[in-house]
């Protein structure tokens, strides 16, 4: 329990750092931050509306510390300002529209890549110097060297454009009505194959190597030899004795990989015009929509922090040593 509270405290601190960074970035810019931030609004808004917007961001003439607390208050209430690109929609509303797709894309890619990569790692370590061990790691290292979004472009070109096996973009087609029906789910699945597939292929290698290396050292332990000597089936020795204990570094790495894979999948979204945060982000960058950009950064950071906390829960469950050391 104390361990979890400590982790929770850490994530709160990280969230605070992200929010504070968000507050200071526009103010660190050369020149008058308010003018620069709202230059894009000129012509769209009257002076009163501009003043109201400044108020929202805390960009007033008040002392910095007052501005800061105004900003914190707004963020806590979920008020992230107004989007420029999607004027006059509030940033939070714009973001929440795409959040589901991003979590779906990055989440399913991460979980699939973790499972497949880890199983391959088990196989590589178990049949060491065998076929899997010899050929798969270099192959995944080569594929992993390509930028995710470039693999996505190639996949889109070959399987979408040339062969026409999969749709060229978006999360679902116009023909189906969103909802819980077979047609829609099937359509979403068909649209997700290429974006998810390319991220999975690109990230497999990391899981494979981590698992393989830990598993190799675990296989040399006495308890594995004992399990073998007892005459347990190889399957049981490999999975229940060795793999289970070798899993821990991979689970710990899961939290670290989250942010990384999310970054990659944001770029993948752009290639497939997938309606998630990445797509919004590029809109924000191109139209210099700073409020939206910062909002996306904040929401993504919070999502990653939350997911990390879940990873902590899992490793607590997996590793009794953490439980014992703190209780």
């Amino acid at each position, binding site marked *: 329990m104390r361990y979890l509270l400590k982790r929770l405290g850490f994530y709160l601190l990280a969230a605070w750092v992200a929010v504070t960074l*968000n507050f200071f970035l526009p103010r660190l810019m050369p020149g008058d931050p308010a003018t620069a931030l709202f230059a894009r609004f000129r012509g769209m808004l009257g002076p009163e509306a501009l003043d109201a917007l400044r108020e929202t961001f805390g960009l007033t003439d008040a002392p910095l510390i007052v501005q800061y607390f105004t900003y914190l208050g707004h963020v806590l209430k979920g008020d992230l300002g107004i989007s420029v690109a999607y004027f006059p929609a509030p940033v939070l509303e714009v973001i929440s529209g795409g959040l589901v797709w991003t979590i779906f894309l990055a989440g399913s890619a991460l979980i699939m890549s973790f499972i497949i990569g880890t199983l391959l790692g088990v196989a590589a370590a178990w049949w060491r110097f065998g076929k899997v061990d010899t050929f798969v790691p270099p192959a995944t290292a080569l594929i992993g060297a390509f930028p995710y979004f470039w693999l996505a472009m190639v996949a889109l070109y070959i399987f979408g454009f040339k062969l026409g096996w999969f749709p060229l973009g978006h999360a679902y087609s116009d023909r189906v009505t969103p909802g819980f029906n077979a047609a829609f789910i099937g359509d979403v699945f068909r649209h997700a194959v290429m974006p998810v597939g390319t991220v999975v292929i690109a990230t497999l290698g990391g899981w494979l190597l981590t698992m393989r290396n830990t598993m190799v050292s675990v296989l040399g332990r006495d308890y594995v030899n004992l399990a073998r000597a007892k005459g347990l089936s190889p399957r049981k020795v490999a999975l229940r004795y060795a793999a289970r204990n070798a899993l821990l570094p991979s689970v710990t790495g899961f939290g670290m990989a989250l942010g990384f894979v999310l*970054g990659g999948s944001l770029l993948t979204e752009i290639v497939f015009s997938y309606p998630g945060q990445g797509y919004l982000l590029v809109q924000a960058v191109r139209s210099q929509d700073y409020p939206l950009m910062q909002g996306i950064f904040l929401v993504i950071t919070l999502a990653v922090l939350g997911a990390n906390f879940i990873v902590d829960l899992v490793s607590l469950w997996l590793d009794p040593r953490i439980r014992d050391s703190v209780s």
Partner: protein
Amino acid sequence: MSKAAARGASGLSAWVDAVKHDKRAAFGAGIIVFFVLLAVFGPLFVGDPTELVGIPMQPPSADHWLGTTGQGQDVLAQLVVGTRTSLLIGFSVGLIVVFVGAIIGVTAGYFGGRVDAVLSLLFNVFLVIPGLPLAIVIAAYLPSGPLTLAFVLVIAGWAWNARVLRAQTLAHRNRDFVAAAEVAGESSWRIVTSEILPNMTSLLVSQVIGGTVYAIGAQVGLEFLGLGDVSATTWGTNLYWAQNDSALLTGAWWTFAPTGLAVALVGFGLTMLNSGFDEITNPRLRLERAWRAFLLGRGHEPGRSTPVVRENEKAVGNA
């Protein structure tokens, strides 16, 4: 002085020697040398990459070996000229992230206590905040260009190195040779720079290589988003324009395929070089390979025994 110089030379030649003897490392080194030469001399042989030389979106031909872009520029010229900036940013960021990581990580690990607590908290926070979105938000506020890119890549990338180097410093901190140096009255600065850091050389080298791989990939990603200087010629902006000109939907594969291949080859070459170094600096990995070859040579099935190091560096089993 001359003694130190001599040791440095033999150290370097030992690395070069080791690369020559490891197939993977030699392969990786070959790729990297090729691209570095391309970056240095290549631009002398191709024309101006921004010049409009032909009809847009022409497939590869004798005139334009890799075809033309959506604007009618030569793809090969863009690729070659782009190599220079992209590699330069990649290698510099790789060096800087390790430098920053070493300062913070080693300080935290060596001094421990409250210093460690504060610094560890700092890099752990930076590790958990997703790097790419952070880099994007910062880059968007700064004037676009190579300096901005390098800056945001360092901000988003140093923490991992700090964490690893802190752990490694902690491992060395309690060794006898550090205790001996302390008893001998050496200053903290000297202990860190001449006792601890030299023992981490292989780790530092592999971190610089890893940092470079990260920097090249992330840089291409940011530029692809349009956060670089889109009028400059780099690998990332090449891909940005390919996407912008709808290269995919017109079937112009030659506008994006070569650049991605170049990025991947450099990344793969660096990774190969790194895994070769692993075996050079970790005698156990090297011996394992030798031990296996030894057993196979005698017609035995290699088991899972660990070879041990003998003074003459021949592999001998622990059986």
